[in-house]
């Protein structure tokens, strides 16, 4: 009986996932997180004046996340010149290391805007299970693409999508 319930639920979720894949329109939920200065920042203020936005979840203890951020940082200037994309890097480090995020980011000379989500409120609201997890938003603030995991070279493919979004193309079929 128990196994039946489990299988039904998994099946149901599986069907729901495929149903959702065709319509990914989603605006960001309203969650209060923090800036690097410890001031409250509401996620509704994630904004880039009609241009694409990347929201990426990372943590000091997540090596692939830091590699992904390094890759974005290396290309950020060029990407911004071409598409005006803005990157928000949301750290889910808990109180053990939230205070270390600012000196780490400075020491790495990262250019993107870093936010702090110490209790995982934004992470939970965005249904992030494993990090790294990156979201691409179009000019209207809708999530049009997201992926988890980072492999070397992934940023190139992601940038192709950013360019399409900047040009106003619909990438939901990708």
């Amino acid at each position, binding site marked *: 009986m128990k196994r039946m*319930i*489990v299988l039904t639920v998994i099946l149901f979720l599986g069907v729901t996932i495929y149903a959702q894949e065709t319509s990914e329109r989603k605006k960001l939920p309203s969650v209060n997180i923090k800036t690097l200065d410890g001031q409250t920042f509401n996620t509704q203020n994630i904004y880039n004046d009609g241009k694409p936005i990347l929201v990426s979840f990372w943590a000091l203890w997540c090596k692939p996340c830091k590699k992904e951020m390094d890759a974005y940082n290396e290309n950020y200037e060029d990407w911004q010149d071409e598409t005006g994309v803005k990157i928000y890097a949301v750290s889910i480090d808990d109180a053990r290391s*939230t205070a270390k995020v600012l000196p780490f980011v400075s020491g790495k000379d990262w250019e993107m805007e870093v936010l702090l989500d110490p*209790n995982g409120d934004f992470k939970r609201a965005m249904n992030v299970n494993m990090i790294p997890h990156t979201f691409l938003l179009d000019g209207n603030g809708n999530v049009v693409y997201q992926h*988890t995991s980072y*492999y070397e*070279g992934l940023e190139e493919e992601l940038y192709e999508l950013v360019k399409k979004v900047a040009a106003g193309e619909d990438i939901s079929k990708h």
Partner: protein
Amino acid sequence: MKRVLLLVMTVLITGSVARAQFSEVIKRSEVHGSFEFDGAYYMADEGVGITDSMINGRNFAFNGFGKITYTLGKFSAGLRYEAYLPPLAGFDPRIEGQGFPNLWAMYTSERFSFTVGNFYEQFGNGLTLRTYEEWMLGYDNSLNGARVTFEPVKGLLLKGVYGMQRFYWTPYTKNSRGIVKGFDAEMDFNQVIKGMSDSKVRLVLGGSFVSKYQADQDPLYKLPRNVGNMAGRMTLGVGRFNLSTEYAYKINDPSAINNIIYKAGEGFLVSATYSAKGFGLYAMFKRYDNMSYKSNRAVTANGLDINFLPPNTETHTYMLTSMYPYNTQPNGEIGFQFQLNYKVPKKSKLGGKYGMGIAVNYSQVNDIVRDPVNVPGTDTTAIDLPGTDGWTSPFFKFGKRIFWQDFNIEIDKKFSKKFKGTLTYMYQTYDIATLEGHTGAPVVYSNIGVLEMTYKFTSKQALRWELQGLWTDRDKGDWAALLVEYTVSPHWFVSFSDQYNYGNPDEVKRINYYTGSFGYTHRTTRIAITYGRQREGIVCVGGVCRAVPASSGFYVTISSSF
């Protein structure tokens, strides 16, 4: 349980039927969610000392969850289903079972929010209250009740919570555990005080008060039914400097964790940072004295913690640097940490074409000093006797016993477009008797080295390898480890790793813990399969740990979100 499932199914199916008729409502509503399935097939393995009788027929095990969130304008609701049938090795056996441990509904407007059901919340750094969930640990101390947040003036945020915490599958009946009530206020001076909005000084002040109520059913001691825990905090930023501090005071809270003493508890954190382009400095000091705060005073292990005591040590992630991890000692610990992050500039002699990163970190944790107190009704003094005030402890004194020392340096450099590497050295002092409960075991001193290199064949294919060594003449002796990973962006990875305990003083225990994995990722869906041996170890997140026994077999992880 069946009724809840039926109700959920009905609501969801009705939703799809209503789809046709209430298209307007449906257009504005959104359904999102995620799920994860971690399964294992355990096998006997003589090399690791696992026999069929030890597995006892429980070859298959899995931890799984599925959650759905429904949003319509200002209203949202969600549920989470979990199943551990049976739980994976190393998870608390009380988690076995299945059901809907998390159900909630929320209304949010610009200045106000109201939540009923299960929710997660953190006040400040968590010294008074932190409810959170950590899937890797099997940890979930969510509050089941109600929460209100209110922002009367922009920049002043008030929060109130009330409820009972989740404890595995125990129903929320009266007296099953304590009731938690809490209040938090945080003021951002730069937003509240008009004159400060453009100031170079950034100031945030906050305070919280949490109280737990638990009936006193003890025949021997008179236990306090209401125990309050209060804290004040401040974050101050001036130019490149930042200072963050929090002090918490908990009144008498005799419990199983502190051996039933009536001493008050204190927690103190202070950290200072300096940031400049390519350079970051961090220093922090921390002290906990009798700060365990659970909503059931009889519970030990990882259940029902109301607060969270952040450790002050670095989180290590390589196989061998994470072999001896730190776990917080709530009854007393005092420590500090320093970190320096520096980017050697590009085009400089040392930096090369792409620059070089240097990170140096040192942390240390000692026991606090404990002085004896009077034993009531006698002429004697004692430390940590039940029914007494426990001890007194001079605030800034470091006790003789060192729980932990960690010096590490990490250098990362990109040599060319195709080739980059990281070199790490770590020296560690690990009081295994205190941190893992191996009474009488001597302190482990170890040197650890890691060399990690990545080579990109093409823009999409890369090979990464790690060579690691741990050298010590205590505990299990020396280790060597190797990891090789081949990735094809954006979908595939394949990897092989081996940890070899070549220096174990007992020749029979010089075991190879080898694993092979491969996985596929597409957008948010990830599937990974691993075969091999997991060595016995400890998984820690934020200083909270769970022990993992050695195991052998197949492991599968499937995860997705929508």
